[in-house]
């Protein structure tokens, strides 16, 4: 039995179904991320788990218990909000201990737990301060600490890192995951930042328009995107997309788009004449002297440790990302090698073939 289960859950705002029909199971102790562009329903999904929104249909259960109709206080979950929502009129200590105080925990137990968690998060020296007197990074830790002391059924994170600057964010990312693994408490994390999702999660659910486009480990999502949308959303650099059609020639299947032609390894489900889209990650293309694809160099962008090379092949620009130093004059001939297993093929509906 999974720890958190959605069965055919629907949620509508006004006349519009933000989430039409969502089924999902999250395992105990898992770091599970809901990833998607804004308006895809990921935050609504999180709020449905918290009980801040009530499902209009379907069933939600947490730890084997049906919570569909239970209000938030009865669900025993802890949530870290995007703006942290630290109570401004309470000290850091009062903020952290609030969930315990409201649940009538014994005073020495509260002191013990707050002390333990706050020293673990290195905010032990801030306990007497007001939230307005500490930095954004510290506020974020206090919010996490308030979640930690509760021993909840699950942690819910609603884009908790989006208000931090880039460097702090990288640090917070590692520390959140470390804490979550140490405590072994299920975490559901909402973000629109695919790098964050890839770096932190055991499993990622990519959402689009209120439905799950794909659920899987970061590796699966990266290496076998189930939809064109997922392929485009995940990855630090935009994928190369080429629209064209399949063409059988001499017993082999080719992809053809104008003069651009590439052999497809044997894949069932493709017929000659099918309209398909080819997707290739820039980091999977190699510039090689004996490559089968010929093109002309357009530009080289230097990014320090790596470079982005744009190459024009029969009027289409293909981006190549590589760490190897490469230099050549613009418009010089370049040939590319694309390993057959890094070709992603999608049909007209955007589904992987």
């Amino acid at each position: 039995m999974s720890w958190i289960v959605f069965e055919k859950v629907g949620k509508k705002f006004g006349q519009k179904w933000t989430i039409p029909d969502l089924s999902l199971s999250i395992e105990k102790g898992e770091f599970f991320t809901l990833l998607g562009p804004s308006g895809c329903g990921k935050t609504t999904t999180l709020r449905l788990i918290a009980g801040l929104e009530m499902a209009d249909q379907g069933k939600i259960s947490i730890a084997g218990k049906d919570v569909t109709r239970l209000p938030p206080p009865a669900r025993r979950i802890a949530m870290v909000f995007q703006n942290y929502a630290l109570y401004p009129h309470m000290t850091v200590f009062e903020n952290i201990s609030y969930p315990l105080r409201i649940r009538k925990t014994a005073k020495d137990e509260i002191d013990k737990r707050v002390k333990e968690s706050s020293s673990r998060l290195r905010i032990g020296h801030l306990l007497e301060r007001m939230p307005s007197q500490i930095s954004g990074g510290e506020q974020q830790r206090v919010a996490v600490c308030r979640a930690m002391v509760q021993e909840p059924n699950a942690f819910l994170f609603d884009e908790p890192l989006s208000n931090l600057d880039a460097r702090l964010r990288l640090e917070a990312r590692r520390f959140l995951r470390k804490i979550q693994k140490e405590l072994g408490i299920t975490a559901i994390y909402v973000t629109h930042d695919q790098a964050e999702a890839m770096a932190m999660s055991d499993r990622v659910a990519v959402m689009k328009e209120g439905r799950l486009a794909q659920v899987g480990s970061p590796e699966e999502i990266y290496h076998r995107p189930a939809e064109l949308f997922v392929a485009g959303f995940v990855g630090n650099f935009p994928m190369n997309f080429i629209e064209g059609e399949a063409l059988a020639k001499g017993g082999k299947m080719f992809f053809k788009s104008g003069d651009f032609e590439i052999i497809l390894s044997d894949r069932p489900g493709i017929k000659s004449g099918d309209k398909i889209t080819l997707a290739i990650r820039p980091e999977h293309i190699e510039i090689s002297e004996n490559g089968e694809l010929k093109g002309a160099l357009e530009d080289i962008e230097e990014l320090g440790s790596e470079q982005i090379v744009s190459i024009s092949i029969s009027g289409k620009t293909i981006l190549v990302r590589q760490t190897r130093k490469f230099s050549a004059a613009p418009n010089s001939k370049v040939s590319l090698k694309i390993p057959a297993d890094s070709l992603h093929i999608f049909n007209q509906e955007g589904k992987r073939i």
Partner: protein
Amino acid sequence: MHKIKKGALYVFLAAVSVWFVLPILWLLLTPFSKEPSLGLSLTAPTLKNFFELSHAATALAAFKNSAIISVSSVLIVVVLSSLASYALSRSNFPGKQLLITLLLIFSSVVTGVAAMVPVYALCQKLGLIDSYLAVVLVFSAGFLPTAIFILKDFIDRVPRAYEEAALVDGSRGIDLYFHIVFPLMGPGLAVVAVLCFVNIWSNFLVPFVLIRSNAKIPISVAIYQFFNEVGLPRIGLISAYSLLYALPVLLVYLWVSKKYGFGFFGGLKG
């Protein structure tokens, strides 16, 4: 030309400030004057007027009466308006906007002159004439609409995330209200409390109409009694009394401004 313009401006501004400062100077100087008059006169300071005042029993009791009336009205207004405005801000029901508009329209009617006859008749029917309760009820009813209106606007701007965080933390119902919502309303409540206190403290008409016996009149009405046998005002007493009368209002302003700085909206950092 430019200099003349500037000079004229200074003269004008000086006249305006004298216009405003004079009454305040009068209030500060006259109570300590040996020969108090309506003009400003500097004499050696004396506490004679205050001494005389301390023998006026009605005048002293009036302080207690004013305090009872103002504080209890303010308490009622603060508690009820915070509850009502929270409900109006966070819930949606048909006719809500109409209700708020009506509140605004009726806000100044109850304590206004036009309503005094019906208010008097009503209190008489209820047997409340010459009681604190009558005055307190009229004041509460009169200031509630304005208070609700101000507070609703204030709560509209307090992010819901605080309440949601508290819900998830396990708080609900009246706990949630008193632990989280009420404190968050603090600055708004302070504004409402000061506004009501100052207005009720200085209101003359309502207690004048509804209270009969000398033992129950507040300061605003008691001050009306400082005339000698032939009907001439006793300026010394009136000025000393006025100064004491003004003090609580000043103190309330100072206290609130120190505590909240009259900064209206706090909001979330980050």
